[in-house]
């Protein structure tokens, strides 16, 4: 297990009793990330591109350096395949809007029932607008993807396949490579929501084989206000731009414009500069640990927590009952108690969890979560077995209020 991690995160110093189990929503930030942002504003702050003065040169270099780091982190071919967005949601919408022109009536868009709304509602709305057919690949009772169903749903009429790499509800690591290769066979474009994978497991976008991969900075120790969209160069080059404005153009005539090279073509206006610098530091921090180690750490936590959770018969767990191919996210309910009440009790015990539908209403319905309200505890590198014990103890205690 990783040890002494909390000491790198000032939030735990300032909230000594905090047991933070909501990293699935957003992670805490190490001191190095916070310092990098401050340092940027205090020493180098300037807008990037076209500034000819030293400050602007420095800020441009830092911005480019950040892209280089992110590119290497996910094994992209080049930093020019990295588009910075405001969050993962914008990245997924960008792909949807930019590909919209290729979708015709009757075309099929295939997603899974386990998508976060960010990788569901855009495709649903695109399908409605274009009279395309939206199809859902099913999961089993534990939230694992039904590959047989995938093979049936992906057909010669499928134009786009969009899928999450890791579910933010069940923690399942989906076999995206297999789904992508099915999609490739029929010539469909593939889009992966990697929000819950990039922070938690090693991700190699080239091995994965997808055409687009989106994720957020704030879930991987980085700041809010920045997301990453990786896109295969060929696609980025030929795609229509999405947001129009400064920096994404080459020339602007009164009635016509031409576009800048990638990735600038997709970065209209002032980008999240300080945020890029913060994200850079976050990648450094994760590299310092090693993503294999991050995954191992979560796997040990998973084994520990799963064992305890499954032994409590007042707990209903939504998701896999085995520790393979999953990260340390646990979504559950206490029989007879409402998720909000349980989450509030946990908070009363100093444990920060989330209750609600976790932006995945269709999945929670599929898994049979009544009213779609559930409690989610999600772990990250700074959590240890003491945090796990606190959760387990509190859940044992809750039993007395049941019924």
């Amino acid at each position, binding site marked *: 297990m990783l040890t002494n991690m909390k000491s790198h995160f000032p939030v735990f110093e300032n909230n000594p009793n905090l047991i933070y189990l909501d990293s699935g929503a957003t992670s805490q930030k190490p001191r190095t990330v916070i310092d990098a942002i401050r340092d940027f504003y205090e020493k180098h702050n300037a807008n990037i591109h076209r500034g000819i003065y030293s400050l602007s040169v420095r800020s441009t270099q830092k911005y480019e350096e950040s892209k280089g780091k992110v590119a290497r982190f996910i094994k992209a071919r080049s930093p020019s395949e990295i588009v910075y967005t405001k969050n993962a949601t914008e990245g997924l919408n960008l792909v949807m809007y930019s590909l919209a022109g290729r979708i015709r009536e009757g075309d099929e868009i295939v997603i899974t029932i386990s998508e976060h709304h960010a990788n569901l509602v855009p495709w649903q709305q695109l399908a409605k607008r274009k009279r395309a057919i939206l199809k859902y690949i099913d999961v089993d009772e534990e939230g694992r993807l039904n590959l047989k169903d995938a093979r049936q749903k992906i057909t010669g009429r499928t134009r786009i396949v969009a899928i999450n790499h890791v579910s933010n509800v069940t923690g399942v690591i989906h076999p995206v490579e297999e789904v992508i290769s099915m999609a490739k066979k029929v010539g469909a474009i593939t889009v992966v929501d990697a929000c819950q994978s990039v922070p938690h497991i090693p991700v190699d976008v080239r091995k994965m084989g997808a055409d687009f991969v989106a994720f957020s900075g704030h879930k991987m120790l980085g700041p809010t206000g920045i997301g990453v969209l990786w896109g295969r160069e060929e696609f980025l080059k030929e795609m229509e731009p999405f947001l129009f404005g400064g920096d994404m153009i080459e020339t602007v005539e009164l009635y016509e414009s031409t576009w800048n090279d990638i990735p600038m073509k997709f970065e209209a206006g002032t980008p999240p500069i300080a945020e890029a610098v913060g994200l850079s530091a976050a990648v450094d921090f994760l590299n310092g640990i090693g993503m294999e180690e991050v995954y191992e750490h979560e796997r040990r936590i998973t084994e520990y927590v799963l064992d305890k959770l499954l032994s409590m018969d007042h707990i209903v767990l939504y998701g896999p009952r085995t520790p393979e191919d999953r990260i340390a996210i646990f979504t559950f309910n206490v029989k007879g108690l409402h998720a909000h009440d349980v989450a*509030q009790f946990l908070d009363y015990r100093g444990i920060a969890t989330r209750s*609600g539908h976790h932006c995945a209403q269709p999945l929670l319905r599929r898994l049979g979560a009544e009213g779609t309200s559930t409690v989610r505890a999600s772990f990250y590198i700074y959590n240890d077995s003491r945090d796990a014990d606190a959760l387990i103890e509190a859940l044992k205690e809750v039993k007395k209020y049941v019924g």
Partner: protein
Amino acid sequence: MSGNPFEHPLFIYAKYPRHRGRLEDFTHTGQKGNPSCGDEVVYYIRVEDGRIEEVSFEGRGCSVSQASADILAEWAMGKRVEEVLSLEEETFLNDIVGGVIPTRIRCALVSLQAMKRALAERG
């Protein structure tokens, strides 16, 4: 509401509601749900001469949503329709329900909205 929710009066109220059920002879009914968490409240109300004679509710959800539904039913009985319609959120939350922590305000307001919807309909 803060601290242990299971030892809070609202949790007790939710467990032992006084007005749960469906009136036989209601003149007004109205429903409100919070789809994001599945909370739901339906009121059945009997109004006579502009005065609320009897109130009951059905629904499901967290303790705060169900308890405040019950408390509001109790409070409304005997009041004039206008008085209930003009009840402000702040007053409801603080003076009638007795204070609700910020995160649970949405839960508590489901009942007020259901009640207003019911009374706003012509009976």
